[in-house]
């Protein structure tokens, strides 16, 4: 989703009493009525240890220091639906500025009834019910909810949520340390990382942080290539993919620009900081993304690209995120493996068509089940009828907070089970085939595409060392 996820600073955490009875539930909280699902398919789907192809989760030590308020349930997606339902600009500002979760609730309580059935909100409701035993957000449930969160918020909470409750094998996380393109983690094996190349396509490219971090100075495009190479050398063996979200600020048409054309523009724009036309800037960005793709191919890294819907409100330009604009890349790099993310929502039929036609294009459901559950069901039905079983990545939470991943994976599991159950019921699929599809979509395709076992081995052999440089100051 959003290229920049920074939690607003708070003055202090709110205090709440401990709950007398920590929430427990014998059967998992479900999205769908189990009677609409084939029991064999449902049981298989429940058993699968998911590979979650896209998250922005913090390290647990960061989570444990965060204030205990409603931000973890609303930021950013659910909050966007509350804004769409009519939350005033004044209340929007206050929500993230206040230190008091009850005050936060007072700001949004009027809009919550209109927004509580969207996919974003449904994920929240499922999560709080399963994890904390609270069925909905109401005046009387806010304090007990936060008390239950506080009671659970101890070392091990991430594993409890992600492994025990969500039954997730590994999360592929898009997050980086300051100045770096990926993150060193205290949760190896559970967390694996993308190399985030979006900033190389930033309109306000600032090389100083990268120069400091790498110890390489940049005075030409050739130097800049060396810096990029340095990062690929640092992370290439244990990163799972490269990730680019530049559709948030520019179209996805990447021209294949020769280096001799890009070099003088790069120097003018990024080094001499002279005024350049947007088209010139795009030339330099195009060159850099092509270069990153070539490096990704060298390291066998898939290429994840944000396509489709923009998180947040009030600025989306649909011309920027069209998956069909990526076709020249699909043709030019047959050996690359492309993952257009988020079903390219709402252009998912284009994506299915492209994934059917191009061997090197995969359908990635990350974020999609909560953007629009019905569209995701529709796309899953299309995938089942149109694509080989190894072309779909069925789940990526795309969250910054682990708690809400539960609700999202619940919708994904139940949604996939529903689509496969319908096909079994219609006689279009045997139960055995349905079980195979479920495993492929939720786990095996991602295990293979991202070479999870190899990456874990590389991670176990030692993560890159820290760089003794000050963090990049925004």
């Amino acid at each position, binding site marked *: 989703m959003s290229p920049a996820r920074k939690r607003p600073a708070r003055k202090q955490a709110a205090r709440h009493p401990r709950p007398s009875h920590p929430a427990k539930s014998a059967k998992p909280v479900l*999205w769908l009525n189990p009677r609409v699902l084939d029991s064999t398919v449902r049981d298989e789907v429940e058993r699968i240890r998911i590979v979650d192809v896209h998250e922005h989760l913090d390290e647990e030590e960061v989570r444990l220091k965060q204030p205990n308020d409603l931000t973890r349930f609303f930021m950013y997606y659910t909050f966007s639906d509350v804004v769409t*339902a009519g939350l005033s600009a004044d209340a929007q500002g206050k929500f993230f500025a206040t230190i008091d979760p009850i005050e936060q609730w007072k700001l949004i309580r009027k809009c919550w009834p209109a927004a509580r*059935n*969207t996919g974003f909100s449904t994920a929240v409701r499922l999560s709080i019910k399963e994890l904390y035993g609270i069925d909905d957000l109401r005046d009387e449930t806010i304090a007990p909810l936060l008390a239950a969160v506080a009671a659970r918020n101890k070392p091990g909470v991430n594993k409890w949520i992600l492994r025990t409750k969500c039954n997730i094998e590994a999360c592929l996380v898009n997050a980086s340390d300051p100045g770096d393109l990926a993150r060193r983690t205290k949760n190896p094996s559970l967390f694996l990382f993308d190399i985030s190349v979006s900033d190389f396509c930033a309109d306000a490219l600032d090389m100083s942080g990268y120069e400091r971090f790498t110890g390489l100075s940049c005075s030409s495009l050739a130097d800049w290539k060396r810096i990029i190479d340095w990062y690929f050398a640092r992370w290439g063996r244990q990163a799972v993919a490269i990730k680019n979200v530049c559709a948030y600020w520019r179209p996805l048409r990447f021209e294949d620009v020769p280096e001799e054309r890009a070099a003088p523009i790069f120097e003018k724009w990024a080094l001499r900081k002279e005024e350049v036309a947007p088209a010139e800037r795009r030339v330099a960005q195009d060159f850099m993304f092509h270069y990153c793709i070539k490096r990704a191919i060298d390291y066998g890294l898939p290429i994840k690209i944000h396509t489709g*819907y923009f998180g947040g409100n009030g600025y989306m330009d649909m011309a920027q995120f069209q998956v069909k604009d990526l076709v020249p890349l699909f043709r030019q790099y047959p050996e690359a493996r492309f993952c257009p993310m988020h079903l390219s929502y*709402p252009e998912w039929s284009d994506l299915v068509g492209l994934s059917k036609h191009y061997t090197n294009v995969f359908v990635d459901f990350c974020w999609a089940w909560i*953007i629009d559950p019905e569209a995701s069901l529709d796309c899953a039905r299309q995938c089942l009828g149109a694509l080989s079983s190894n072309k779909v990545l069925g789940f990526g939470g795309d969250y910054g907070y682990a708690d809400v991943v539960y609700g999202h994976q619940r919708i994904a599991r139940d949604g996939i089970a529903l689509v496969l159950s319908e096909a079994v019921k219609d006689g279009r699929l045997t139960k055995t085939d349905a079980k195979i599809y479920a495993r492929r979509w939720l786990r095996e395709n991602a295990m293979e595409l991202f070479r999870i076992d190899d990456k874990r081995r590389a991670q176990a052999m030692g993560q890159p060392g820290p760089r003794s440089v000050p963090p990049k100051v925004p």
Partner: protein
Amino acid sequence: MMAEVRDLVADGVVEFSRKEKAAWVSPQAIDPGLLEEIEAVKIVDTHEHLETEAQRLARKPDLKPFLYIYTLSELVSAGMPMKDAEEFNGEVPVDRQWKMVRDWWRFARNTPAGIASRLALREFYGVDDLRDSTIGPLVKAMQKAVRPGFYRFALRETAGIECSMINLTEPVQGELCMVSADPDLLLYDISVAPLLADDLKLEPYEKAAGISCSGLSDWKRIIDRQFERWGSRATAIKNQCAYWRTLKFENVKEEEAAPLFEKWLLRKEEVTPAERRAVQDWTFHHCIRRATDLDLPVKIHTGYHAWNNYSDPSWFQPKDLARLFRRYPRTRFDLFHIGYPEHRDVVALAKHYANVWVDLCWAWLLDTAATLKFVRQCVGAIPLNKVFGFGGDTGFPDYAFGHARMARDGIGLALTQLMHEGRLTRDDARQIARAWLRDNAMEMFRIEERRKAARMGEP
């Protein structure tokens, strides 16, 4: 004086309100608790082109109220010659009308528009279908039923419509809105599309405003005069220029538009399409600003073109409007016709932009499968206060009934399916149905205030 239709019903002369009501979907397919709620809702109908009741009473009974342009378009799509369709819409005896359509009706009777036609025939005139043998009884039944009070009886009591918002297809003597004969039932939009016509003539508007136009600033005063005159009682402004141009509206400055306006409309010189569009762009931006000042929502035709054999989908793309949504965050935009067939884009836009609403007007007559799917999408993707569930978009109340019946049944069916899947409780489904069919429109279009203003008589 003709007897009121209500009296004829009371005397049993006209057999309205049959025991077995016309229905699109089997009532068994809809959750009973939800169906009860949906049947009880008095719909706020966001969009109609209804002629006045006086005009209707002056008509000879014919097939037009059932084979309204949408059904007629399906017949043309099935193969009926366009010249026959044009003749059909003129003053033609019923026998001749039936002769022109009978070979094509069997192909089109199950299209959504054909279904609406049959629902109207059945509910109002006790005729289950159009056949050689039913045309005569139909005409007789119409002669009996279409009496003073027909609109109230058809819309309010039979279709369960609280009020309808009407969009004048053509300006009346340079006026973009009109005085309602029944402000409780019929409210009007300010129709700004004529101001964006490619063959715009200034004279009627000059005359209506009493302002002679010798430049863009005069034109602005003329437009402002319309807003002053109708702004307090109109429910919205409405623009359907997607029928003749794209929805990409550049923000043209007044000093750029003024010389082009003079060249095109005052000196009547040849202008390029781009020059003409620049004037239209300026005009629509000006109308949006005026609408925002008066808190009038901006209704925009997006998606499918009525009639046949000319549609250019590049004209009606809802995503082209995003720059307006960004530029006018205080303005409330109502995207008509679910942008069909670009309804997926419309869901995404209404989810992302707080100032965008989706409107199912006309949609149930276009594609029932797409609209059912769209409804399910809306439930899961956008807050429940962002959807208007019904607008008939018809010229006749009988046909509006058929459409309203399909909207009630369609929403009932889609919400029942979601309940069955465990995605909605019955209470949630009832709340959504009420909001979509009534409450959202009552609030957005400030119906009570508009009624009060409209009751004041001539503006």
